[in-house]
């Protein structure tokens, strides 16, 4: 004895249908609340995922950035400058780190701040942004729009360019076409690394033998270096990357010097020459090209350390910090950044929550009205054998259905808006050649949670009206007009 499960549903449905306009209003309120909650949560989740994916695609989740300086965060540490009080990042330090557990790879990086302009064919010259170098051993990964990484570290004259350059040079729709093309990199005028054309020291020596003014000294001229493009990458628009070995060659201070022995030899020769009445050609000092490695002097800009699992980055970073250097993981950085998203998410969901509370009050109102209107009907049901609990369940179910339907339509509506937003965002992303698509996402668990929540809200809102309906006495309900 007792009403069948399916009959509760069909009765509840029919009752909602019979008071169509009022049900629709109650559902509409829930839809508004649900749609706003859904969109807000989807935005936050989507932004989080997008953010996360950016790090994931470039392998940064398994990375630790080691820095000569302590106390920088992950982002700062990637472009930290060398400093006086820092611990020098030498090969010795690198070897120590490589010996640690869970460390699977390491590359030194060096900033190559020697270029001022870059050009390709007859296309407009571009100013040079940051130029970084690394060992192409798989620790640092790029998102390539065309081409790929350096095949080996000794790739002198090979570069990876940022997307902006390719765009500026007119390869926006065909990044592939720029691969293998040559670019000309113009150095600043104090560049004296490998490839620089140093002024002939003898000419200079002759000119200023008798002493000359500062402006008469032959100035070092900018050098133009040629390089071949091997890849176009998307995540750092105006960056250029070089293989570390080439960078080592570029980061050299070269100059002509006269060694002590040569100086003595020259002085002797000159004295002899003068003593002989300046007979024959004037003896000239012998110049030697001296090269000073900046890397050896200053150490690497950073080490990028690859760890086997994201979960081990923090522990390894801690171990590395014992060497007196700075070490940060993307993981901890992301977590601190995600904290912001969580706060935004809570605030937005809170606003949506208030909308849902208002909607719940709407349901209470709708159902109390329904109880009043259907008092006689309740009396009839009671007279022919409905229990209090039957009446109570029926009204609770009706309210739950309002919540459920509101949730379903709200999700559907929210999904529609999200899809529209994604279409728009996707065109924007495509325009910027970012590979991610459908950034705002609506995961299944969110759909279930939201619909579940609105159903529960409906149910809770229905409790009071249902109680009122159930406590009606049959005779009194029947007498009600």
């Amino acid at each position, binding site marked *: *004895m*007792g*009403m*069948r499960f399916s*009959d509760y549903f069909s*009765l509840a449905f*029919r009752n909602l249908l*019979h008071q169509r306009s009022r049900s629709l209003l109650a559902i509409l309120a829930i839809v508004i609340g649900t749609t706003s909650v859904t969109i807000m949560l989807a935005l936050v989740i989507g932004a989080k995922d997008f953010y996360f994916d950016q790090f994931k695609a470039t392998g940064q989740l398994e990375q630790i950035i080691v820095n000569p300086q302590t106390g920088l965060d992950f982002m700062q540490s990637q472009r930290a400058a060398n400093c006086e009080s820092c611990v020098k990042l030498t090969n010795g330090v690198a070897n120590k780190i490589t010996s640690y557990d869970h460390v699977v790879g390491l590359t030194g990086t060096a900033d190559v701040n020697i270029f001022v302009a870059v050009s390709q064919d007859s296309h407009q010259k571009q100013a040079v942004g940051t130029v970084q170098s690394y060992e192409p051993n798989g620790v640092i990964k790029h998102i390539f729009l065309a081409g790929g990484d350096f095949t080996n570290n000794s790739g002198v004259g090979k570069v990876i360019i940022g997307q902006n350059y390719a765009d500026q040079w007119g390869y926006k729709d065909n990044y592939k076409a720029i691969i293998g093309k040559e670019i000309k990199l113009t150095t600043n005028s104090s560049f004296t690394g490998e490839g620089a054309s140093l002024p002939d020291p003898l000419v200079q020596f002759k000119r200023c033998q008798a002493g000359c003014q500062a402006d008469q000294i032959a100035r070092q001229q900018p050098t133009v270096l040629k390089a071949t493009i091997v890849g176009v990458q998307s995540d750092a628009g105006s960056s250029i990357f070089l293989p570390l070995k080439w960078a080592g060659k570029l980061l050299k201070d070269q100059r002509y010097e006269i060694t002590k022995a040569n100086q003595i030899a020259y002085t002797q020769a000159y004295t002899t020459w003068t003593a002989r009445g300046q007979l024959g050609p004037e003896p000239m000092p012998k110049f030697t090209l001296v090269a000073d490695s900046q890397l050896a002097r200053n150490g690497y800009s950073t080490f990028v350390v690859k760890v086997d699992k994201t979960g081990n980055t923090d522990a390894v970073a801690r171990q590395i910090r014992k060497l007196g250097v700075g070490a940060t993981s993307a993981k901890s950085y992301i977590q601190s950044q995600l904290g912001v998203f969580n706060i935004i998410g809570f605030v937005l969901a809170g606003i949506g929550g208030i909308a849902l509370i208002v909607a719940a009050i709407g349901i209470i109102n709708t159902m109390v009205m329904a109880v009043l209107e259907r008092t*006689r*009907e309740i*009396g*009839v*049901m*009671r*007279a*022919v*054998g*409905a*229990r*209090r*609990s*039957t009446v109570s369940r029926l009204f609770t179910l009706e309210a739950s259905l309002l919540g459920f339907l509101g949730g379903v339509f709200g999700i559907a509506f929210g999904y529609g808006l999200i899809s529209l937003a994604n279409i728009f965002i996707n065109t924007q992303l495509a325009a910027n050649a970012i590979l991610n698509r459908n950034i705002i996402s609506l995961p299944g668990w969110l759909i279930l949670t939201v619909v579940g929540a609105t159903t529960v809200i409906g149910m809770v809102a229905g409790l009071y009206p249902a109680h009122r309906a159930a406590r009606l*006495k*049959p*005779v009194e309900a*029947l007498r009600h007009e």
Partner: protein
Amino acid sequence: MAKPIIELQKVTRTYRLGSEVIHALNSVSLQINEGEYIAITGASGSGKSTLVNVIGGLDSPNSGTVVVDKHDLSNMHDDKLSVYRNKTIGFVFQSFNLQPNNTIVENVMLPLVLSGVKPEERKKRATEYLNTVGLGSRLDHRPSQLSSGQQQLTAIARALIGQPKILIADEPTGNLDSLRGQEILEILQKINDQGTTLIVVTHDPNTAHLADRILQMSDGRLTELKI
């Protein structure tokens, strides 16, 4: 040998209106046997409806005992009382009390829906009962599409579908013209002939005289007119 099916002892039902206490039932004792046809008459406000509501489990007395078909209603839990209303009692009201949004057949099925009878089964039975009252062709009509007499016939079908032992009709002809009223009374008579105990509340002496016994209410007190 007549078996008592309804026994009331010193049943009192009072209403309090401000400082005034109204005795709708004032120490009513009563015995009705199985299969009897009882008419209850009396002036308006004398307590007739209150009496049948108490018997039908729609109302509960302040004091006294009500035993129907061996059920003691006085201290019955609501759930059991609901089952009692569903199974033992059939109720027909003056104002029909049909659910306006439901079809005729749905109205008749309602007691079976509440007791969990399967959809095909209850539809079949409701159709049968509507056929016997002559409404077999109106199954999917709404109450508003029927005449008053047809609505009351529907209400009778609903009261009978649970095969109750006792059928209570509280002024069943009150809203009908005399011809329709006559029709209803004939049907009720037929039901009683088949063994169902019948209690009819009426103002009309002619109607009352159809019954085996006439009970008269006045100011909450009961007297027997004819045996």
